[in-house]
């Protein structure tokens, strides 16, 4: 036997009992070649390209799933940022029509989400991009599979505060137009957005990418939790070591799956995103990993250190396993989607400020955070700007996916359904930053950007 029975069992156990899976396989598709002066022809070309390649992705991902006995949870598509191809068709009506075309294409190909209906506005906003942002509430309300993003800053350009101010208003309007504000779950605002991130809602096919690119997101909080549970006595150095070994193995599995699907569809393999991604399933939670370290409830003192340790070990294990690590490659701590995070909010262990502190040491940001529906737009923009400032100054990706929930106050429960999970609405600092945010303009790029 070329492997010991323990090795075979370890792999089987990770999949069968510890919820190891391929969280997402995301096919990046360039749609710049679909642009046409006749809008009907343009839409049709986009639809055909997405349906044809989406069907291929589903077919081959299912075959690979059977071959390796490892579930591939989500099969998705990321497209060229839509604002780039819509400059000559940038009316609100056409943006909505294009979004609906993409939504229908996703349904036809059985793709659950298509990302990229957004724009890169880190240095400033074009007229078309402004129209897109203004139309986003209607776009998100009239589609169910289209995901949107904005990149409002980079360490090299600073942060476009005018765009951040538009986002606060846009989110409030979207929340009013969709039940429980659920439309906001399909929108992420970034700084330093990676161009090959396979995870929704923020995936897009970057401008430096080839025609196609197949990216993989692995998962495995359950696997990491299990290995930590079995090593209760070890010190932090040893803890880091056992996490590295485990992440090494799951990253290798992810790369194998990604390369095999890419080969079968005959497109280039892009990257494996080593982020630990939680799900609503009990045990598949990053919060529970941190609690297994010895922290009673995530949010307690020591939690930031614990996440920093986890993240560093994940990166080291992943980087050793694959030369194609990319995307976000951090630790996701989405509040509503992670049962342990949500419980920590309910038990008053975790608040907004501690959550923000976590994001300074791990990816990716304030993710799936429900806030009171009566939060002023300027306050929402300021929360986002705080989070993004961490990314700008520390030369890393940070993001915010914030959901103002209409009619709900802090502490009241909201259920977004399915994988989006549930959580108590989080409490927000009541004092205003309105006069500060109204100044607008651009946060200058920090001194660390001057590296040439």
């Amino acid at each position, binding site marked *: 036997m*070329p*492997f010991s*029975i323990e090795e075979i*069992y*370890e*792999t089987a156990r990770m999949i069968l009992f510890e919820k190891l899976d391929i969280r997402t396989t995301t096919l990046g598709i360039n749609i710049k070649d679909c642009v046409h002066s006749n809008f009907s022809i343009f839409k049709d070309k986009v639809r055909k390209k997405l349906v044809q390649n989406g069907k291929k992705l589903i077919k081959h991902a299912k075959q690979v799933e*059977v*071959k*390796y006995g*490892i579930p591939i949870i989500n099969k998705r598509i990321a497209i060229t940022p839509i604002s780039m191809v819509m400059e000559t068709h940038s009316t609100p009506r056409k943006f909505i029509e294009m979004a609906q075309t993409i939504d229908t294409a996703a349904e036809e190909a059985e793709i659950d989400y298509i990302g990229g209906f957004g724009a890169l506005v880190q240095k400033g906003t074009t007229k078309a991009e402004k129209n897109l942002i203004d139309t986003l509430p209607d776009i998100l309300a009239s589609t169910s599979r289209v995901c949107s993003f904005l990149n409002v800053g980079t360490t090299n350009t600073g942060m476009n505060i005018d765009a951040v101010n538009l986002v606060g208003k846009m989110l409030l309007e979207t929340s009013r137009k969709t039940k429980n504000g659920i439309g906001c779950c399909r929108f992420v605002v970034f700084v330093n957005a990676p161009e090959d991130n396979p995870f929704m809602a923020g995936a897009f096919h970057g401008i430096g990418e080839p025609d196609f690119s197949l990216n993989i997101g692995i998962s495995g909080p359950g696997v990491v939790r299990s290995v930590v549970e079995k090593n209760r006595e070890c010190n932090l150095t040893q803890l880091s070591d056992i996490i590295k070994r485990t992440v090494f193995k799951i990253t290798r599995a992810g790369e194998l799956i990604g390369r095999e699907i890419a080969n079968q569809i005959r497109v280039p393999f892009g990257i494996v995103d080593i982020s630990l991604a939680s799900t609503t399933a009990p045990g598949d939670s990053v919060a529970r990993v941190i609690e297994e370290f010895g922290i009673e409830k995530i949010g307690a003192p020591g939690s930031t250190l614990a996440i920093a340790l986890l993240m560093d070990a994940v990166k080291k294990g992943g980087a050793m396993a694959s030369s194609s690590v990319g995307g976000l490659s951090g630790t996701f701590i989405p509040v509503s989607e992670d049962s342990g995070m949500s419980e920590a909010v309910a038990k008053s262990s975790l608040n907004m400020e501690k959550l923000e502190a976590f994001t300074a040491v791990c990816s990716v940001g304030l993710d799936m955070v429900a806030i009171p529906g009566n939060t002023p737009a300027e306050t929402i923009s300021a929360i986002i700007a705080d989070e993004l400032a961490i990314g700008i100054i520390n030369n890393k990706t940070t993001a915010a996916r914030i959901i103002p929930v209409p009619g709900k106050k802090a502490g009241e429960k909201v259920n977004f359904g399915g994988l989006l999970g549930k959580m108590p609405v989080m409490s927000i600092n009541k004092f205003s930053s309105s006069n500060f945010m109204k100044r607008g303009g651009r946060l200058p790029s920090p001194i660390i950007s001057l590296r040439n």
Partner: protein
Amino acid sequence: MQKELLFITVIGKDRKGIVAGISNLLFKKNINIEDISQKIIRKHFVMVMLVDIKEANSSMEKISRDLQALGKEMGLIVQVQHENIFNMMHRI
């Protein structure tokens, strides 16, 4: 001829007829058993078979589905995986 090797992992409670049941199904599908090993790991009965499906008369999907159905009948969990995944995870 290049072999196409799969690992069949059977997990559950030890009982009579596990090897016989699975071997019989593999025989009907013209699949050769290359190696077989079993052990109790953390109170689980674990049996691993290394098989070559190069000359099998049904697809990997069907083999996997039928083995899992047979496992269910016998109250066992059956996992079927191509050998590449073990090469990637356990060998550098």
